[in-house]
């Protein structure tokens, strides 16, 4: 490669060392669940060893790995929110919001029950053997301002992590990228349609999304045209294999590079394309203990390959006369269209745009306009208790809808010191008057009690892990709404009482929170895998769609609930029978607590006439409520 670029070749010794190049490498998101523990940890240790980053994928991570070489530097936040706890989020250097995946953009996913081993289930706060569903959308991102809100939530829980948003190449991804930059993401990933998956409809793998080159070129230039390129880092992935691939990706605008299928091949994948069947013969994409023993990958292999690849990058840089990858990002004058008849049929030359402006990220963080001074001030008051919870604290404050993600920053501080164990119950009590903003108590840690005299908005208790939120007001009860849409999305614990109605998709993907409300919109308890939901009033339709765990109790005063249930996976049962006495009295105990904390007339009425009113309750639970246990395979 005799470079006549704009520079003379330089000695390879002048080129940045391998370690600098490794910093730009990561392994693509592959969950503990879709791939084996051996494969997952091998990639993590290898990346941490060379200074790259591995990605947890969607499915939580064993807390034992946090703070060790096995910790994934990138923690993914995907639509299923499996295992997304305060400590999980706090353990990351980078939080990646997977909006789309190259192999199946616009779709959710499934981890078949056969791959949900006891370990996988515990990491995801679910039960072994039960198929896990990730919804197609993030239920808290239907819109760009919603994404801005989630980015804001994540920047509160972990102010030290970069927030990345993963998009898939398609015409128009540029304007999406610009919007994402305006929503204060620190990094944007443009994935190619050639990205892999553990399972997807075969047509989706083939026919949705475009090659990464097209998306990267568009995103890089759209960010430049909108004067936003300097605010964000761009990464790309999609079949990258060699140093030459990396250099070309850099020249087309990417500062960082991820490797998915390639990384799996290094540790033994031979493209059997059976990840979804749990029969991977090389122990890479299986949870079967016997097949896992056949895993031949190891850390050294990964390091070897990445070293060779980065070495090639250095050689090319030397040829081109550049000392670092940073210097060639976006320098597309270094590329020529090949001299070839077939190539001339297409407008390749046109793709080499030359817009003015910087080609790389210029800021350490893309800071939001709203710096959350309100809560930073609160933290000053709370810090002594967070550090030493032996002295509980009670604060009385006013709140408004401008105070978003309330208690999330506090929760992050708690998680940083105490992990998911949080603080002892009731260490911090926050009595707030007014209407709380979006994402009240998002990713909340144990030990916080919030009492709102007023109302909440959308996403109350999103990703909540512990503590208690109580919302009531003088204008409350089943006729009033006191909360918005998508509350308790992906919650893993804690308690939420809303003395009134809430909106659509209440308790979506809840896997551990306990809650009482007095009415909901459509699609309640969708994809729920755990926790206990009590609704003392009307619900919308499509109740329990995709619900594979947990229990819901609905007070059906008008006698029209049964029709609202989506019977595909769940059944509605009466509970005033001998068989369900545990559940019945569990419900009663919960209602007592709820009545005390909210003063709900309806709850008091039910408790007073419990023997009559219990007849109006339905319990909704997955059919054959006992979970199916993993069937042992192959005649074991």
């Amino acid at each position, binding site marked *: 490669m005799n*470079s006549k670029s704009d520079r003379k070749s330089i000695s390879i010794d002048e080129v940045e060392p391998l370690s600098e190049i490794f910093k730009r490498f990561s392994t693509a998101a592959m969950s503990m669940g879709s791939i084996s523990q051996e494969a997952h940890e091998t990639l993590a240790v290898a990346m941490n060893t060379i200074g790259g980053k591995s990605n947890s994928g969607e499915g939580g991570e064993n807390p034992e790995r946090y703070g060790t070489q096995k910790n994934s530097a990138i923690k993914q936040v995907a639509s299923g929110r499996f295992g997304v706890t305060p400590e999980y989020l706090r353990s990351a250097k980078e939080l990646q919001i997977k*909006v789309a995946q*190259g192999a199946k*953009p*616009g779709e959710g996913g499934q981890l078949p029950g056969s791959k949900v081993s006891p370990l996988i289930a515990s990491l995801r706060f679910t039960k072994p053997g039960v198929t896990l*569903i990730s919804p197609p*959308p993030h239920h808290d*991102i239907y*819109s760009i*301002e919603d994404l*801005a809100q989630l980015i804001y939530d994540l920047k509160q829980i972990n102010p030290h992590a970069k927030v990345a*948003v993963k998009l898939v190449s398609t*015409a128009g991804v540029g*304007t*999406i990228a*610009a919007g994402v930059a305006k929503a204060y993401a620190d990094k944007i990933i443009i994935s190619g349609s050639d990205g*892999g*998956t553990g399972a997807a*409809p*075969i*047509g989706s*793998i083939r*026919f949705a999304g475009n090659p990464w*080159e097209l998306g990267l*070129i568009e995103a890089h*230039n759209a960010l*430049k045209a*909108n004067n936003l390129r300097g605010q964000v880092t761009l990464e790309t992935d999609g079949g990258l294999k060699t140093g030459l691939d990396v250099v*070309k990706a850099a020249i087309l605008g990417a500062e960082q590079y991820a490797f*998915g299928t390639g990384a799996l091949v290094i540790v033994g*994948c031979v*493209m059997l394309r059976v990840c*979804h*069947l749990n029969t991977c013969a090389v122990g890479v*994409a299986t949870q079967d203990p016997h097949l896992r023993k056949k895993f031949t990958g190891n850390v050294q292999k*990964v390091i*070897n390959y990445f*070293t*060779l690849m980065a070495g*090639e990058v250095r050689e*090319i840089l030397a040829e081109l006369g550049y000392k670092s990858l940073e210097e060639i990002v976006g320098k597309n004058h*270094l*590329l*020529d269209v090949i001299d070839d008849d077939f190539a001339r049929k297409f*407008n*390749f030359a046109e793709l080499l745009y030359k817009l003015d402006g910087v080609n790389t990220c210029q800021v350490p963080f893309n800071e939001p306009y709203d710096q959350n001074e309100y809560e930073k001030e609160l933290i000053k008051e709370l810090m002594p208790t967070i550090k030493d919870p032996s002295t509980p604290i009670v604060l009385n404050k006013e709140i408004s*809808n*401008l105070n978003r993600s309330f208690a999330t920053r506090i929760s992050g501080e708690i998680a940083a010191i105490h992990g998911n164990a949080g603080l002892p119950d009731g260490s911090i009590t926050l009595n707030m008057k007014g*209407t*709380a903003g979006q994402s009240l108590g998002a990713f909340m840690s144990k030990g916080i009690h919030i009492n709102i005299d*007023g*109302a909440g908005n959308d996403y109350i208790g999103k990703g909540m892990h512990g503590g208690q939120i109580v919302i009531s007001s003088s*204008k409350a009860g089943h006729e*009033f709404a006191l909360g918005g*849409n998508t509350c308790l999305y992906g919650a893993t614990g804690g308690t939420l009482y809303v003395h009134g*109605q809430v909106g659509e998709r209440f308790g979506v993907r809840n896997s551990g929170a306990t809650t009482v409300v007095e009415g909901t919109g*459509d699609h309640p308890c969708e994809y729920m895998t755990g926790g206990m939901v009590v609704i003392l009033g009307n619900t919308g*339709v499509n109740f329990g769609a*995709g619900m594979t765990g947990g229990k819901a109790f609905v007070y059906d005063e008008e006698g029209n609930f049964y029709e*609202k249930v989506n019977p595909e996976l769940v059944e509605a049962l009466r509970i005033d029978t001998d068989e369900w006495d545990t559940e019945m009295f569990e419900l009663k105990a919960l209602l007592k607590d709820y009545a005390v904390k909210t003063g709900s007339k309806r709850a008091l009425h039910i408790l007073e006439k419990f023997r009559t009113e219990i007849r109006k309750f339905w319990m909704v639970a997955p059919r054959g409520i006992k979970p199916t246990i993993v069937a042992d395979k192959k005649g074991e």
Partner: protein
Amino acid sequence: MQDLFTSFKDNCGFGLLASIDNTPSHKNLEDAVTALSRMMHRGAVAADGKTGDGAGLLLSLPKSFFDKDAKAQGIELPEIYAVAMVFSNNDSDFDVINKVCENNDLKILYTRTVPIDTNALGEQALASLPTIKQVFVAPKGAVAANRFEALVYLSRKEIESELMHDKTFYIPSFSTSVVSYKGLVMPTHIKEFYKDLGNPDFEISFCLFHQRFSTNTLPEWKLAQPFRMIAHNGEINSVTANRFNVVAKMASAKSDVFTDEEMNRLKDVIQKDMSDSASLDNFMEFLRVNGVDFFKAARSLIPAPWHNAPHMDSDLRAFYEYASTCFEPWDGPAAVSMTDGRYIGCVIDRNGLRPSKYIRTTDNRLLISSEYGVLQIPEEDIVERGRLQSGEMMGIDLKHGKVLKSTDIDDYLKAAHPYDKWLCENMSYLQEHVPTAEVKKTSIQYGNMEERQRYFNFTLEVMREIIKPMIAEGKETTGAMGDDTPIAAFSNEQRNFTDFFKQKFAQVTNPPIDPIREKTVMSLNTGFGERQNILSDGPEHAKRLKTVLPVMSAEKFCILQEFGTQGSEKYDPSYKVGSYATTYKSDLKKSLDVLVAKIIVEVRDHGIRTIILDDRELDADNKVIPMLMVVGRLSQELLVAELRSLTSIVVVTGEVFDPHSAATMLSFGAVAIFPYLLYYTVEELEEGSDEIKATLKRFRRAMGAGLMKIMSKMGISTISSYRNSRLFDVIGLSSDIVEECFDGTYGLLNGLGYEDIDARLAANHKRAFTSDFDGQKNALYKGGYYKYKKGEEFHDFSRPTILAIQKCAETGSKEDYAHVQKLVNHRDKKFIRDFYELKE
């Protein structure tokens, strides 16, 4: 691609505030501004706190304020007048306004320069600040109020069209009842910017408000919302189809308000180069000014999910099914506040994807907004605090001072006409006639079956990986890992024409739907027949032939033909069938031109309504034009010829073999598909089965589920919104092909032209019809597209490459790595990056 760098999508915080009894006050204005300011976090804010993507208010006319202001100029405003808010950069624009108004019997009373304070603007807004004026207009003689409103609308459309090339000229509002104050200004600064708004005399009784969050940083004054009637939070996923359909509908629109000549003058209902929300506003306004009921218009364009809602009131369902014969849902996340001056309301999309919350207060006001708490209202002043649920609408009858809840509106809508009766008498489901269908066994031999299978790429792999699993599992099968093959344009193997098309999908600005767990909001319900006048109502509108799945069985296809064939008992000229073979011998482009021209003539002059495009005449002498190319081109040409709304395009094709190929046909305008070769193949695979009918039905369901999956990726719930949506990217076809056949689709990496495709088809044809292919008679191709097979389609992770990677990972040796470099870096023109080399 360059145009994409500056394109945009937008979302927001929105709402409305109204005195239920229509009492004007300045407090209403102040509170609306406060509410808007307290949702700034839902918009975009630049570091200076002044630059955003736009905000605005659509206000009831502040009559006392305008009266006073006019008086100060020595002008007495009449009882009835209209105000145009105008953004302009040229004085000559006002000559155009003058001329058009004059021509439409309107007189200009006076023109007022709207007082502004530019200190309220950020740098970017200031740079693009237009002159802002208000033009007061009255009718020249005595006219009815609705005629005056119509003339005002007509004038605005004509002015817009005359000044179309002036990108900055814009009329934010021109109305007798509302006026717009909007622009590139932050809510916190809007009162400072528009000095009028600070004047205590400026009293309004209702208001829509909106703050925009655009994905780009090149906001324009005109794109700020509200528009003339609506403020929209969300995204219209189906907007390409909706715009296309509006044009189609215009051909048969007859108005009671406008003469035919006037209708011709306002043909461009949808303003060009505006946002999805603006297009919805355009259409809503068009319907309203033509006398379509406010609530009917709203619920026809944004209906509740009625198809699979057995619990819904049957009369209400009848209204929705009736409305669906004229209107396709403008589908996607939507919270839309809207007003026509008489009513004000808010509607939520069928799936509840945008928030909308309301509070009614003791001072008889209603506030609807994205969030609670945007006004600090003491709890004791709250009468009602609620939220709008999926598919609900609420409104206020401002004249009678009455709040209308969703059920009130539903009761009103369903009682307007005997919809149920009209449907019972005029609508027919094909299924009803299936028992009478006389179908020859579908396994009937067309001859040359293996040649056909080869021509259409029904490889052994397709049988094994696609068709058989769909038979066995009743759904599209699951695969794993990624696509490591070249795109169709770069492939050296025989590829399907539909492979050039890549599905679009929702990300960030709109959500995909779960077609399994949320299938209650989805439907593939399909109708055949002419579209009636959208501006009137009557039993004839209900006349449709219907089926629940656009992939038709042989029986249904047969019945459809009976309805359209003269001499048949069922014959009805509204469904008159014309069948057209899509075969050709040479010159693809010319053959396509000839075929399409012929069909246009037959539709226009011979009353053809059901166009059947048929590629069954494929044989050793005849190739076929790619069906997708015919569908796309024909649909476009019919639109230009103003015949689109009369016709239904049905395809009989071997090109459809999976959900993707079926989706391409529908997305470019086909209404139904009869995939004869696929059915033949299923029957052949299931030979000997007693349950072939049930198997075929299951198979069609699987195709249907696959179609729903593809629609749902784009967040589209009904096939009627998906049809004509063109939701694909085309990679590697020439711009000629894209423009002539697939207009509205994004063409990337323009390349292969008609001749190239022609040459590929010729080669495929020759190979397919070589009788001793592969040394054996009747053999199918092996195929190696889905999984690597030596000697077939290129896979970047081929066996040799995998082995090479693993070897060098093991050894860490540069020599072993060189082998990987050779296989990957010198693979030769398989991926886009391979077409670029480092400068030498």
